[in-house]
């Protein structure tokens, strides 16, 4: 079988597995985990585009997530707008905030940019907590409608109350998003982003409009995070200021670094791995009666940076090149 067909077969099998999974494993909690993992895949991948490819250190990514969630939730609960539109709106509004956050990135870098993004995120969280008329403060918004059913003719109706339909919806969203990320990353656009990451002055000298690209990547990255947030709002049906917390951002960060910053597969691996790992940890926590999850995240982050800079994907790649060299 030719390599091309082999790759196609692998993709087909993988897709089939993902589609069949909820039919085989009917455990609702397991499906919930998959959905959570899927949301984090979106968040980690979008952060990766910004931080891994373009080298922009954004420590306020959860803010985009939260903005998407709140936008869609508010549109649905206060204005009765259908969640399908809200999904899109969440992404767009988050994208606008992304554009806004892109402006400081034109002049700042490194720790200065990082702290500004944290400030941005924290200010928004405070707004979410205190603008009670709009967001109901710390209580959060509940009773958010789930996705309205899709009717295909008179004989088929897809409901979205059970986890399973949400899973498939998310699967579609994630696949589309990953396809877009793949195209962006491996394109002229992606290469231009990487040139900015490597050396801004050098990039400018070959015609790269640094400001334009930075604003673009912030906007795009924020859009997908907002999309994830909007989905979350109609899935969980409850949104609180916690979605904007630094803890959320740090989780996204840890997932991406662990998986492999600057790679396509890395954030996916990291997101899935850590979601299930933290579940496994929950069993341990129940047994030992200690909250160790964040500690493990911290340790993982430190260990990854010190010893496994390329993350799991990087490790995998270097093992592969080593074995190839030996052969």
């Amino acid at each position, binding site marked *: 079988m030719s390599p091309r067909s082999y790759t196609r077969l692998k993709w087909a099998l993988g897709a089939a597995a993902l589609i069949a999974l909820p039919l085989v494993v009917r455990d609702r909690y397991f499906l919930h985990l998959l959905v959570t993992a899927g949301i984090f895949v979106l968040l980690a991948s979008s952060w990766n585009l910004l931080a891994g490819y373009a080298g922009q250190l954004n420590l306020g990514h959860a803010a985009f997530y939260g903005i998407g969630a709140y936008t869609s939730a508010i549109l649905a609960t206060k204005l009765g707008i259908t969640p399908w539109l809200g999904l899109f709106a969440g992404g767009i509004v988050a994208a606008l905030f992304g554009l806004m956050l892109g402006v400081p990135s034109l002049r700042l870098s490194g720790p200065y940019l990082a702290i500004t993004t944290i400030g941005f995120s924290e200010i928004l969280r405070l707004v979410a907590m205190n603008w009670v008329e709009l967001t109901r403060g710390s209580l959060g918004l509940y009773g958010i409608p789930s996705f309205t059913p899709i009717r295909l003719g008179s004989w088929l109706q897809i409901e979205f109350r059970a986890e399973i339909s949400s899973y498939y919806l998310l699967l579609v969203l994630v696949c589309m998003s990953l396809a877009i990320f793949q195209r962006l990353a491996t394109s*002229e656009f992606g290469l231009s982003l990487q040139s900015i990451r490597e050396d801004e002055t050098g990039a400018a000298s*070959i015609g790269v409009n640094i400001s334009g690209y930075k604003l673009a990547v912030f906007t795009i990255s924020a859009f997908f995070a907002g999309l994830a947030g909007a989905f979350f709002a109609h899935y969980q049906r409850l949104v609180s200021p916690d979605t904007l917390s630094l803890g959320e951002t740090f989780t996204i960060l840890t997932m991406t670094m662990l998986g492999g910053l600057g790679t396509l597969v890395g954030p996916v691996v990291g997101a899935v791995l850590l979601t299930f790992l933290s579940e496994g940890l929950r069993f341990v926590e129940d047994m030992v009666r200690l909250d160790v999850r964040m500690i493990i995240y911290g340790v993982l982050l430190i260990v990854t940076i010190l010893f496994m800079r390329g993350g799991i994907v990087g490790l995998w790649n270097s093992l592969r090149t080593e074995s190839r060299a030996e052969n």
Partner: protein
Amino acid sequence: MRLLRTTNLTRYFGGLCAVNDVNFELASGEIVGLIGPNGAGKTTLINLLSGVFPPSSGSIIFRDHEISRLKAHQINSLGIARTFQVVRVFKKLTVLDNVLAAAVDRRRLGPWGLVARAILGHGGAGETWDHDEADRLLEFVGLASYRGELAENLPYALSKRLEIARALATKPTLLLLDEPSSGLNPSELNGQIEIIRRINGQGVTILIIEHVMKVIMNISQRIIVLHYGEKIAEGSPKEIYQDPQVVEAYLGGEAHAEH
């Protein structure tokens, strides 16, 4: 045909005047050398021409465009490319990707244009995407066999060549070379001179900063001398070599010693 002209070009850094009222012209197809003792303002001048920062006063006219207020990437789109004194290749990218990044046609499409192209499935790694052009350039500077190597793994001399290939990929009319020979050993110097000649042979005007007299004297048709930010002499290599002001600027030693 006049390609570039600077008029009263001046640049201050705080109280220090790095470039002081410099006037010169470049004609199409020339190779012009820019020399002067350390701190004379040569790199600052190149930075002004390439848009790294704007002048404090004065103007730069390139092909009838006033470019002194333009940003670096805009100036590159107009046809000026440069290399750097301390090499600034894209370290974590492969040699090929370094050149490909530069080969992207940015005159037509800005970032969002490229985003659209990417999402629609064009301009991706699968397409031929100017690979041929990039390979040709790598061949030209002798880096073809390093194509897949990470730029940070290249020895210093080769990374200087990579910068040249990268600059050429932007299809410039004017190439500014900032000390392309620094750090090269004598055998590498000959190769360098050859490459510069061939670039010029393809119609690219070249302004080259150099300390290595062998290179400058050999390939420049004309030389401009800066000292403390001012142009103190201009002429053929022979004239410059004998100019007492120039000799004195170099403290009467270096210019002779190299030969």
